[in-house]
């Protein structure tokens, strides 16, 4: 098939965007699972959509292509562009604009025959007028009714069509903000596209834009959660490059502001447990029947939250609950360190022992999830205890390895 800038489905480009944006160190030859032609096409598309952010680096293994974006400097997520690339036919676009010109106000209510007559009048002024048959137009109107932009109403045996009522929400500042700081923000970007150009007044710090690539999946998961429906989903194990099917009841989307990852918390009947799935590993979602257990399971999840630091609901030690505590010290002019513990803790308790010492304590399903956070206090940790002794040993060994890495493993100082 000839190359086209537009695409029919999002799946393949989603993989390439992830590779180019998150990783970006692979050369063309390393994209072995796809054909060279496919690689060249996808790279060319991304170059066209996101040209300003595409970069190249020559390495001994070949030319590496990567996307480099400082999201703090962009008012809008550049990756949203990829969602605006759906292909269509010549007939689709012709019909779209003419149909909405015929149905230019909600008061215009017409039958299919009346629409067909009007349509022909629009097309006669072209050198070789297109001929649309009524079934094509009926199908298109049906699609638009499903999208909510056309209203189809039956009076007697005749179907009448009109455009849906207009909702005016033109607060560009609100859309600028929420399109970046709210789930499924790409929908806000669609709304912004309909507004006139305007000055942008917001910037975003710690702004992860990778979630944009999972918008379709997250949107379907929200559909399932709203409808309390179970789903069948395909997930990919990227290390084994294997796709498997799972039947679960989705309960909540959990988003990390600190890593940009999005997770589905869902009940998996196969394991009789609530577990997490990364949304970027979900390949497809199919909605099934309504689950009568949804409310009960959601309540169970709420009860689990005080024991979850992140999204893990099981330990590696086999203990149901793991205990973790650590103590830190700080100087007279560092009292903000105690405040850090208070504001950054997600569960557990913080205790001020004296003017220069604070202790954090928590009981969680998986204490390993706290380790990166505890490491941010390196330089002031005076004590640490994990009930999971393997984890405690690993924490200590990691510290020793860090000393070695920076050449301070000998005496007290270099």
């Amino acid at each position, binding site marked *: 098939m000839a190359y086209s*800038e537009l695409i029919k489905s999002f799946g393949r480009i989603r993989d390439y965007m992830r590779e180019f944006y*998150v990783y970006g*160190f692979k050369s063309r030859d390393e994209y072995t699972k796809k054909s060279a032609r496919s690689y060249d096409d996808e790279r060319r598309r991304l170059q*066209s959509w996101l*040209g300003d952010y595409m970069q190249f*680096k020559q390495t001994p*293994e070949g030319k590496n292509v990567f996307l*480099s974006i400082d*999201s*703090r400097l962009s008012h809008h997520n550049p990756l949203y562009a990829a*969602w*605006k690339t*759906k292909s*269509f036919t010549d007939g*689709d676009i012709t019909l*779209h*604009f003419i149909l*909405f010109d015929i149905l*230019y106000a909600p008061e215009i209510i017409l039958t299919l025959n009346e629409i067909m007559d009007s349509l022909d009048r629009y097309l006669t002024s072209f*050198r070789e007028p297109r001929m649309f048959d009524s079934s094509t137009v009926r199908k298109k109107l049906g699609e638009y009714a499903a*999208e*909510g932009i056309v209203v189809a109403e039956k009076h007697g045996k005749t179907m009448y069509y009109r455009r849906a009522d207009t*909702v005016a929400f033109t607060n560009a*500042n*609100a859309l600028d*903000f*929420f399109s970046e700081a709210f789930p499924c923000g790409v929908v806000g970007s*669609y709304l912004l596209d309909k507004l006139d150009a305007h000055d*942008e007044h917001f*910037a*975003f*710090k*710690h*702004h*992860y834009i990778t979630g944009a690539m999972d918008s379709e999946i997250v*949107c379907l998961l*929200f*559909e399932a959660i*709203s409808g309390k429906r179970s789903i069948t989903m395909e997930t990919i194990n990227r290390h084994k490059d294997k796709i498997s099917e799972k039947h679960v009841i989705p309960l*909540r989307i*959990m988003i*990390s*502001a600190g*890593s*940009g*990852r999005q997770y589905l918390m869902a009940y998996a009947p196969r394991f009789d447990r609530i577990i997490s799935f990364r949304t970027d590993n979900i390949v497809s979602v199919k909605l099934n029947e309504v689950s009568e257990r949804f409310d009960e399971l959601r309540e169970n999840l709420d009860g689990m939250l005080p024991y*979850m630091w992140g999204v893990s609901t099981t330990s590696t030690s086999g203990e149901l609950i793991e205990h973790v505590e650590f103590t830190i010290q700080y100087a007279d002019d560092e009292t*903000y360190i105690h*405040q850090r513990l*208070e504001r950054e803790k997600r569960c557990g308790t913080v205790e001020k022992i004296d003017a220069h010492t604070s202790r954090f304590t928590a009981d969680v399903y998986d204490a390993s999830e706290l380790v990166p956070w505890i*490491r*941010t206090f*390196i*330089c002031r*940790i*005076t004590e640490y205890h994990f009930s999971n002794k393997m984890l405690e040993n690993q924490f200590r060994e990691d*510290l020793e390895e860090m000393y070695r890495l*920076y*050449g*301070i493993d000998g005496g007290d100082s270099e």
Partner: protein
Amino acid sequence: MIFSELYSAYYNTVASVLKTAVRRPLKKNELREVIEQHAFGESVLNIEPALSEERWQLIRSDGSTPLKHPPSMPMTTLEKRWLKAIFADPRIRLFTDETDLLPDVEPLFKASDYSVFDKYLDGDPYEDEAYIKTFRRILDAIEKRYPLSIDATNRRGNIVHMVMMPEYLEYSEKDDKFRLIGSGWRHKRTLNLARIAHCQPYTKPFEANPGKAIQPRMCKVEFELIDRRKALERVLLHFAHFEKQAEKIDADRYRVTVSYDKDDETEMVIRILSFGPMIKVTSPQEFAAQIKERLLSQKSCGH
């Protein structure tokens, strides 16, 4: 359906083309300009011939259109449902009081359907009327370009007074806070909105420093990464929001360069520390020295 041609750059571009064409015939160079402005790098190669060859029968050969009205499309159900969801978010009050536009629409999701589980607990008070008033005043000042006279509480709890030309608002989801970035008499000023006790238009003559000073001072840190315990994926995702480059240097070792704002250097130091021995900073030396200093202090804590 979230991936639909209804939202496509091509449809939006053609809508812009037709907006002019319903008023007067469009010249060929104007057509090209609109396409270049609204669509992608290569789109002109597709849209221009599709219209001029009348494959898309919307523009006649003389640049006129049979359409009679500027193109418009009602909101889709998806758009309405997403809007309904933002109307339930407390932050919407910062922008508008009109949140009852869609009484019969089901939100795409409710607040209980998702959570940002690691945002800090001392986020801004979005439902506080004084905070809302301050936010709206600042946004107005940014839009209309007038200076503000501000009283704010500093870290020690004292009220300080300042005058600045507000430039933009910066939001951090992790901190769950807005910051005002503006130009003072001489320097860039950054102020947490929640610290502002009072603000009003400054009516005396005010000349802020040139806008250049509010640009971030970009620095680079380079580190080597060893891919154990899925560190490669964790690190690259964690630093994904920065401008960065990664390069494979060995079977399981990578060199990563990340650009960051000098003002955020302490934060970068602790973010790098959070990856433990999977990351070793290689340059600049001053950055590596900060890591080393913290490790030395840690060693003196007895662990």
